[in-house]
């Protein structure tokens, strides 16, 4: 089981208490009061309005407005409507959804019940990545408890509202985190993303209207219902309210999870909370939001961790997975590891993505070996630019961005490899 976060806030406040994972422990801490309030005192529209006013943005990586997304679900539908809880968490550097499942499964389920009420969904498919066996067990246990005590099923909290939750385990494919890849996988197929439109709200799981939200997104919802949208907006920034759970990894003294308001400065997270770089070494670069997001160099860490500020520096919050690299780090090796991942995980449907990820990795690997050609950097930039904005899903962009970021800020590392015909960073991490 994961260690509780080093810094907690409303999502993770009770994660040090093992009982919080059980129904009784959750109820003792005020759990399911928000669901009761929503189902018995509110209308679906007033729930959607409240979440809209709170300004909650999806925490799965894209940051789309949650209330707005819910409002896309057709009000009248002769087909059943579904929700999907995206628990496929596989973005390198991310491990927040895991702790939410391990330590707070009922918080997720309560968020699901409220979202189901707001959108009129009859069933939620909670799709957990296959490797997350223990977190999936915790969620399944919580689902069984919730059914037994009337928090899920036919007549939830005696309100007349019915909702089912089905847990499905994935089987090891990053692309199943992309929402339409997930839908295909849920239907028992290869997880190859669908062309959009139609969007899931019209044609989603099994062809039915569907809303997909991330585990953390659902977890915020009960708190918004309980404490209101104004309270939620007291945390975070004007454009990005609330907290998120940052996962800090790599070269820091205290790697781990930190629940902090959005807009907390990146340097504060790294140096004050995570204890800075150990061994008296200097920091070289930081990837702020999971492997898909472009890197920032040491001189640009005074940035509030919210998309409106990160965008100015050509990167994004992504999943809040912060990866810290010290001065020994070879950025060509970093590019090599990341480009290998994307080459391996491309689903292969789109030529630009399939070929582009392959070429990028091949060229980067050759540069690292000392066999790089003078025009390799130009080729890399050209390949990366052709991978953007033209494919079925955003995976291809997500594969291009980190390489572009590394070349933007650490081009000299690449040039030195080509010039010296070897890797000039003997102390860097092993490849």
């Amino acid at each position, binding site marked *: 089981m*994961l260690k509780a976060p080093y810094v907690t806030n409303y999502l993770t406040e009770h994660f040090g208490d093992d009982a919080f994972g059980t129904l009784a422990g959750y109820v003792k801490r005020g759990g399911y009061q928000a669901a009761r309030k929503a189902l018995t005192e509110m209308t679906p529209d007033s729930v959607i309005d409240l979440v809209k006013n709170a300004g909650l943005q999806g925490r799965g990586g894209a940051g789309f407005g949650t209330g707005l997304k819910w409002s896309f679900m057709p009000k009248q539908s002769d087909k*059943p409507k579904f929700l999907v809880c995206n628990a496929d*968490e*596989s*973005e*390198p*550097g*991310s*491990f927040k*959804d*895991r702790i939410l499942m391990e330590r707070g499964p009922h918080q997720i389920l309560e968020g699901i019940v409220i979202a189901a009420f707001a959108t009129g969904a009859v069933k939620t498919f909670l799709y957990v*990545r*296959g*490797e*997350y*066996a*223990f977190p999936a067990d915790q969620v399944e246990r919580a689902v069984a408890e919730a059914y037994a005590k009337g928090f899920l099923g036919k007549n939830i909290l005696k309100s007349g509202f019915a909702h*089912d939750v*089905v847990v*499905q*385990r*994935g*089987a*090891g*494919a*990053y692309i199943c985190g992309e929402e339409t890849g997930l839908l295909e*996988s*849920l*239907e*028992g*197929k*290869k*997880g190859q993303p669908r062309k959009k439109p139609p969007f899931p709200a019209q044609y989603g*799981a*099994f062809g*039915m209207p569907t809303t997909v939200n991330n585990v953390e997104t659902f977890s915020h919802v009960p708190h918004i219902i309980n404490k209101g949208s104004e309270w939620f907006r007291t945390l975070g920034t004007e454009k990005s309210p609330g907290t998120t759970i940052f*996962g*800090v*990894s*790599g*070269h820091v003294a205290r*790697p*781990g*999870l930190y629940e902090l308001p959005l807009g907390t400065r990146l340097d504060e997270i790294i140096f004050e909370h995570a204890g800075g770089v150990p061994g008296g070494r200097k920091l070289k670069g930081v*990837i702020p939001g999971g*492997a898909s997001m472009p890197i920032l160099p040491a001189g640009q860490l005074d940035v509030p961790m919210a998309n409106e500020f990160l965008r100015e520096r050509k990167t994004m919050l992504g999943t809040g*997975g912060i*990866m810290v*690299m010290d001065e020994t*780090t070879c950025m060509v*090796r*970093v590019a090599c*590891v*990341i480009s290998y*991942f994307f080459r*391996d*995980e491309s689903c292969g449907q789109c030529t630009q993505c399939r070929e582009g990820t392959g070429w990028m990795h091949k060229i980067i690997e050759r540069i690292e070996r000392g066999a790089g050609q003078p025009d390799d950097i130009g080729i890399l930039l050209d390949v990366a630019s052709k991978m953007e904005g033209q494919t079925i899903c955003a995976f291809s962009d997500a594969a291009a961005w980190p390489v572009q970021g590394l070349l933007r800020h650490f081009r000299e590392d690449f040039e030195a490899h080509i010039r010296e015909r070897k890797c000039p960073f003997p102390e860097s*991490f*092993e*490849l």
Partner: protein
Amino acid sequence: MVISAASREKIAAEIAKYPAPRGALLPALHIVHAEHGFVSPECAQELAELFAIRPFEVLEVVSFYNMFHATPQPRHQVRVCTNLPCSLRGGRELLRRLEAHLGVKTGEATADGRIRLGHEECLGACAYAPMMRVDQQYHEDLDVEKAKSILDGLD
């Protein structure tokens, strides 16, 4: 029949949860792996019958996902994470040392069919690197000695 009656019962219970039977194909494949460790051609045939699809459609799905196998597997799958956060904290060194310890290369199985050593992409344990997955179990905050003794303790 290769798929046991008990597994068939579990598969039927999964099928009942979905609006279309095929939704239960991944759950069914997990059930079959728990029983046999892989999907044999006979198994694929039986699954195809259960789901009213063609055997190649079953195998196509099997081959798409890393955790499904169409051939018999060693008793244990040991996967060391080599994605960036783990690499920054010694993940690749750990993998190299375990290769030497087991006398195999990454991707290979030991001659006694006990362990397949592999690498894995990020497993969501980045702050507790280096780490490895042994079958369904995560082992975190490893050092080489600790990892070796975990492998030595496998049957």
